[in-house]
């Protein structure tokens, strides 16, 4: 009987050492490296750094990641070189990857700028939130570049575990702790569903690699499809939880409301986008020849998500909770684009996610500021007379809300336009009509906030009467808001810039390089 070591030594010659293409994962390396560097530097310096140092560092790291992504973009769009797989087919580097790297890095940067003053205001200063945000974003990028179901799972966990901690970051607010526990328990459940789905798909197709699954499914007809369909269903549960699709949305209002506002902004933009990236990679790219099986499920999910999100948002009084429900509604719109299952649909979904990221980051930045110290003033009444008190802030919020409602000249209009166009092209007219109806329903709630800001409260009811402090607009949050407004309007006036970017970013399916 040979010892284990001897057996392993014999197998040593058979070991396949993966070729690591460091260039392919530079955006990831920059984010993770930045996060580790931030932790190390903050641990080694004994004095408290100048205000805003951590946020500035985070923004610079994100800028580095964006530059690295743009370099990759040039490479994958070059017809001579094109898209490629890295790490023995585990990752796909294509326009899609680069698109989401840029989106996520931008979200981190804007959220970090808002978080800077927030942490100081709430006495929570430290590098932890920034480090976790960078790591979480790296997980999101892993999900977007995954070419293997296991890598999707890995990315999802990196994204989520950091988010659980971030949700509970506010040590002295019970709501924050509660949201962290809720998110953790439900998130762990949904991960288990996803993992079970992966196991079933592996059982049905014999591989976890997306390109191999697609190849298998195109060459073979399964005798009984039960295993595969159950796998689809469980994968949809796992990913539907992360994108907050109804009926897997129950955590969203509580967690969005309880989590620190900058973290909510990050969750609604980057985390949602990453989950959609995984959804598109898995279902659009790998399972596309079984579309007749999963499209009806997505249809139902999309309708439920849009309707429930819009209707429940209207009856909320808490603005943060309202925006949480409206984010569910927006997830429904993105699902409409996924349902189309065409390249145009995917481009529409990408456009929607990018536009929505700016709107929602801006909205939650305003919510952060109006929340004041304690992060508790989120009732609609707290927005009363904001236009008189802080006209510019109210104007910015108006832009974000109008954009979310889909008013022309804002990013939201073209986002909805492309999505509904894709749905109409795919001949799912009922879905398009339902989408437009829910857009009208949710417009009511955005208008309600705007009306409260501009028209509610008479002159006599000033700051002295309500006994509130004037809303402060710190520098970092101001920059973040200005950037978000600029992007929202720019995309709204010149949608071609992003539309072209999104069209070139449709995911491709590549088999592993020989």
């Amino acid at each position: 009987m040979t010892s284990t070591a001897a057996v392993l030594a014999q197998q040593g010659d058979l070991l396949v050492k993966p070729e690591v293409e460091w260039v392919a994962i530079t955006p990831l390396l920059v984010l993770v490296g930045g996060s580790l560097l931030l932790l190390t530097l903050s641990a080694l310096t004994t004095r408290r750094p100048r205000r805003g140092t951590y946020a500035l560092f985070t923004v610079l790291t994100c800028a580095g990641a964006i530059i690295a992504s743009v370099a990759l973009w040039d490479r994958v769009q070059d017809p001579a070189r094109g898209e490629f797989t890295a790490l023995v087919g585990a990752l796909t580097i294509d326009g899609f990857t680069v698109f989401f790297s840029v989106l996520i890095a931008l979200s981190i940067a804007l959220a970090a700028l808002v978080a800077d003053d927030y942490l100081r205001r709430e006495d929570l200063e430290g590098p932890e939130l920034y480090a976790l945000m960078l790591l979480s974003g790296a997980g999101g990028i892993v999900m977007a570049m995954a070419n293997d179901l296991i890598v999707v799972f890995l990315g999802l966990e990196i994204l989520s575990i950091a988010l659980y901690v971030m949700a509970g970051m506010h040590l002295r607010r019970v709501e924050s702790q509660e949201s962290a526990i809720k998110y953790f328990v439900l998130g762990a459940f949904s991960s288990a569903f996803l993992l079970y789905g992966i196991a079933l798909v592996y059982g049905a197709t014999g591989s976890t690699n997306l390109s191999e699954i697609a190849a298998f499914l195109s060459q073979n007809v399964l005798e009984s499809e039960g295993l595969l369909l159950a796998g689809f269903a469980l994968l949809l549960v796992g990913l539907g939880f992360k994108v907050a699709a109804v009926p897997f949305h129950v955590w969203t209002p509580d967690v969005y409301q309880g989590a620190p506002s900058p973290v909510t902004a990050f969750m609604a933009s980057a985390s949602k986008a990453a989950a959609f990236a995984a959804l598109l990679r898995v279902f659009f790219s790998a399972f596309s020849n079984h579309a007749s099986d999963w499209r009806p499920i997505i249809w139902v999910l999309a309708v439920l998500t849009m309707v429930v999100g819009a209707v429940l948002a209207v009856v909320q009084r808490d603005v943060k909770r309202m925006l949480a429900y409206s984010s569910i509604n927006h997830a429904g719109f993105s699902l409409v684009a996924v349902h189309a299952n065409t390249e145009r649909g995917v481009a529409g979904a990408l456009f929607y996610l990018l536009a929505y990221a700016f709107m929602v980051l801006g909205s939650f930045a305003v919510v952060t500021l109006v929340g004041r110290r304690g992060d508790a003033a989120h009732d609609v009444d707290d927005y009363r007379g904001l236009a008189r008190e802080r006209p510019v802030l109210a104007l910015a919020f108006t832009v974000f809300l109008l954009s979310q409602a889909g008013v022309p000249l804002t990013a939201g209009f073209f986002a909805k336009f492309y999505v509904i166009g894709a749905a109409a092209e795919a001949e799912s007219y009922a879905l398009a009509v339902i989408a437009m109806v829910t857009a009208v329903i949710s417009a009511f709630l955005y208008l309600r906030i705007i009306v409260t800001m501009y028209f509610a409260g008479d002159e006599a009811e000033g700051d002295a009467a309500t006994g509130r402090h004037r809303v402060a607009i710190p520098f970092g949050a101001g920059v973040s808001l200005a950037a978000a407004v600029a992007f929202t309007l720019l995309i709204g006036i010149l949608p071609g810039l992003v539309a072209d970017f999104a069209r070139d970013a449709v995911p491709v399916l590549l088999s592993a390089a020989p």
Partner: protein
Amino acid sequence: MDDYLPLVVMFVLAVGFVLLSIASSKLLAPSRPTSAKDAPYESGIVPTRDNPERFPVTFYLVAMIFIVFDIEIIFLYPWAVIYRELGAFGLVEMLVFSVAVFVAFVYLISNGALDWGPLRRSRRLDGTLDGNRTSSSTIRRIPSRTQVEGEAAPPAAREEGASREAVAAGAAVGSTSEASTSTEVPV
């Protein structure tokens, strides 16, 4: 489908065994309940009084740090077994991994995870905690039934006692056992 038959049989047997055990113990065993047997955690000796000493929370921190590094070792073992075959690739990967874990360690130390002495004024404690807070000034214990008579001292006297203990706690490294026993000796 026939391949799964043994599995189904196994499942039926497992469920059957559980049901049989529960039913037979209900039918055959004598039932003499006592309050100790009905306690939520029926194990070990029945507790008669509170735990006389408090655990410093640092113990849990050390346990958590131990787990972090224990897991690192688990990953190091398989690498060590085949490190020759992995060669430079394995070395680089392991270095990256170790650096990441080591950064976590540096972070923990800088945050005072291994400081066992009395509270020091450090960067992390600004605003939220201060050195004058001790376990006796921040935690108010609810006396158990046997202690109620002894605890009926007027609040002023208690306040004085607390400040005296604060001094004692500052002097004693560890600061928990002395401070807590002096308040909780049952009369």
